[in-house]
């Protein structure tokens, strides 16, 4: 079951009705309902995935209590490392084992040995969302170990923290310090919150179904047949993917946040208009925020962060970008993508200008300054270039794509098919709405609510109409594979 499916359109109102009208007397009942709904939601992919999710949940729950109650530092460390090794171990087996086996075999084969990796690779499916819920559990266990939080005694609340369906398969990656206290409190749904939640879901669906899936059609066409296209069309293909990946993932996050708001629970923000960033450091403060801050808090800072000398800063920056790339998938393309972003970041870090642009661009104004505009365009183009590695099937594909893109016909007029102008028009519309909403939590938060209601309803009807017309075969969200 995915957010843009008919099943979810039936599932959500049903759970909403039960939550507010049947089990609304006690928080515990509401949490039990949400937990079962989450397990049903996850099991609808493949019921076998539930075993791994349950194991990860029980492991985090049990080791969390053991860490807190350990009599000696030695035992505390034991339970901590047991939890880390098992959690990371499962992630490694399911997500990275085949990659390492294949990479080692390729390495040995390049040295003249004849190794067949296929006999020792595993034929297993990657459980949806494993990277996300593993990170939930890891952050919880680390926080207990560092005495930042107390362990959770209620298995229902902890289970819900790990498996809460809006964020289970593609985040945002929540923190126990943020989500668990909310699960203990009584919740209420005000009219404004409910409308706001619905509006955010609507905007998320628009981004996913209309912009991302519309761009995906042409991005796939161009990337899959890159040998047949001119340099300028390859650039257009990279642009299509740039908007696809953002609208796909931030659309998902908007639906997740909006859905959760309908249950009276606030989730962490995941995107803050990254394509309006003036430098790459700002981009990374605004892109996939929950993951970036996770790496910052649990890897970068423990490694020494920016406190040491220049060498330490550079080393730590490279480590978190490489790990971030690797987190996305077991493919060299993601690692190169991570490394490329580290290289982008380096000049800012070395000149201490990585925290220059902390505020939203052109705050309180309609237009940016020329300097801001140039900064945004350059940052955007750097991101576009990086996404080629992210989208390519392998390193060879990425390099061929880039080589062909930077040929002499890069400046020729691209032969864009006439129907491809539909997603282009929607991208422009989306950019305008995002620009005017860039100082808010999400673009639509303050874009239409103040309008006279017939106009407002017409605007919402337009968004829904576009979603309904363009929703054909359900397209998976890109980040489900991670």
């Amino acid at each position, binding site marked *: 079951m995915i957010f843009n499916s*008919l099943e979810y359109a039936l599932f959500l109102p049903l759970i909403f009705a039960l939550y*507010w009208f049947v089990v609304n007397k006690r928080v515990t009942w509401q949490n039990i309902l949400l937990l079962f709904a989450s397990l049903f939601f996850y099991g609808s992919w493949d019921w076998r995935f539930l075993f791994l999710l349950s194991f990860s949940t029980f492991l985090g729950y049990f080791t969390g209590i053991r860490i807190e109650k350990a009599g000696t530092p030695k035992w505390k460390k034991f339970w901590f490392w047991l939890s880390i090794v098992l959690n990371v171990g499962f992630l490694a087996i399911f997500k990275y084992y085949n990659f390492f086996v294949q990479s080692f075999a390729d390495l040995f084969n390049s040295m003249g040995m004849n190794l067949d990796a296929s006999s020792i690779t595993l034929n297993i499916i990657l459980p949806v969302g494993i990277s996300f819920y593993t990170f939930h559990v890891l952050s919880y266990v680390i926080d207990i170990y560092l005495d930042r939080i107390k362990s959770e005694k209620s298995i229902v609340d902890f289970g819900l923290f790990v498996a809460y369906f809006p964020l289970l398969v593609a985040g945002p990656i929540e923190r126990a310090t943020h989500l668990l206290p909310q699960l203990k409190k009584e919740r209420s*749904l005000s*009219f404004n919150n*409910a*409308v706001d939640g*619905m509006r955010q879901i609507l905007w998320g669906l628009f981004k996913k179904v209309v912009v991302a899936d519309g761009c995906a059609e042409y991005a796939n066409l161009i990337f899959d*047949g890159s040998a047949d296209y001119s340099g300028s069309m390859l650039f257009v293909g990279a642009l299509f993917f740039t908007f696809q990946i953002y609208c796909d993932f931030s659309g998902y996050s908007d639906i997740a946040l909006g859905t959760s708001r309908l249950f009276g629970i606030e989730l962490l923000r995941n995107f803050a208009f990254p394509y309006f960033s003036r430098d790459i450091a700002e981009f990374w403060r605004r892109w996939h925020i929950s993951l970036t801050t996770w790496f910052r808090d649990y890897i970068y800072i423990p490694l020494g962060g920016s406190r040491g000398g220049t060498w330490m800063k550079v080393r730590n920056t490279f480590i978190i970008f490489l790990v971030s790339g690797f987190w996305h998938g077991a493919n060299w393309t993601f690692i190169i993508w991570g490394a490329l972003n580290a290289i982008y970041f380096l000049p800012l870090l070395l000149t201490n200008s990585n925290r220059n642009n902390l505020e939203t661009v052109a705050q309180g104004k309609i237009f940016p300054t020329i300097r801001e505009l140039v900064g945004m365009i350059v940052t955007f183009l750097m991101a576009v270039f990086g996404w080629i590695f992210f989208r390519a099937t392998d390193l060879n594909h990425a390099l061929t794509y880039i080589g062909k893109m930077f040929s002499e016909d890069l400046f020729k007029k691209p032969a864009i098919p*006439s*129907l491809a102008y*539909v997603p282009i028009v929607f991208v422009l519309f989306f950019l305008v709405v995002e620009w005017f909403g860039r100082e808010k939590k999400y673009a639509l938060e303050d874009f239409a609510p103040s309008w006279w209601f017939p106009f407002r*309803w017409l605007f*919402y*009807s337009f968004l*829904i*109409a576009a979603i*309904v*017309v*363009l*929703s*054909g*075969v359900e397209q998976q969200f890109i980040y489900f594979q991670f």
Partner: protein
Amino acid sequence: MKKFLIRLLAFVFCFFIIDKAFILVRDSSPQREVDRRLEFILQGKIRADIVVMGSSRGARSLIAQQIEDSTNQPSYNLAFPGSDVTFHEYVLRTLLETKGNKKPSTIVLVVDDSDELKTSKSLKFRFDRMYPLVKYKSVRDEMVKRKEKKPVVTELLVLHQLNKSNFKFTPRKFTKNDSIMPCGSMPISHQKKTFDKKYGTTQYVYKREGELIQKVNAFKEMVAMCERNDIDFIVAIPPNFRKVTAGFANRLQLLVGKSGTVWIYDEAKPEYSNPDYFFDNAHLQKTGSVVYTAEFASFLKNKD
């Protein structure tokens, strides 16, 4: 909560009303099409004894009017460029099931050597040809059956029946590759600029690996439909600018069995290795189509 639910219901009601206005868009879509052949089928207007089906090779290689002149049997071309065998199966099924269409005596399926049953980038089920015709319930049902559209939503919302092509309000124009004759055939009278004119002498051998079960089943279903309706089923392999794939005809004959015939053109004819008769490596141009159609019509006349 009560206020929220009331507002939500009011909005849903208003949206439902707005949605119904799009019936105008849906119902005016067919008028903007220049290729009306699929709509003729849905309207029960096909009156041919010999019907040619297939993809661009069928549309461009066999000239239905020439077949009609030669055999004295009404002929019509229902081949759609870019379509695969699953689409051909849909066209044949619709042709036979729609009231008003005359049951043909012969179906000629012009196949793609050798992608007919395999994955192909250029051949697909042509939903884009169906969207202008979504005002017909049978078209909507087929889209739902093929999971292009969601079942309940398609019934509830007119908007869900449409796609972006329905909002292109200017009439479609034919390109120079798409001009259509009154008999439904679409021969081309020029050559593709990138045609290298080198005759492929490599002898490829057909392999069944890579065949798609959906395509094989659709092909079998076409055979079965023809058998049930007592229709002569002919599978025609048209010329590529290379040798015919060895074993391809045998594979098709195996699927057709005794319920039809697989016919291959005479490879020895000099026209089929002369680039002047070809549009590109995979398609004849009109001069070649005339030669090929004449050969096919002769086969048809002598068949019985």
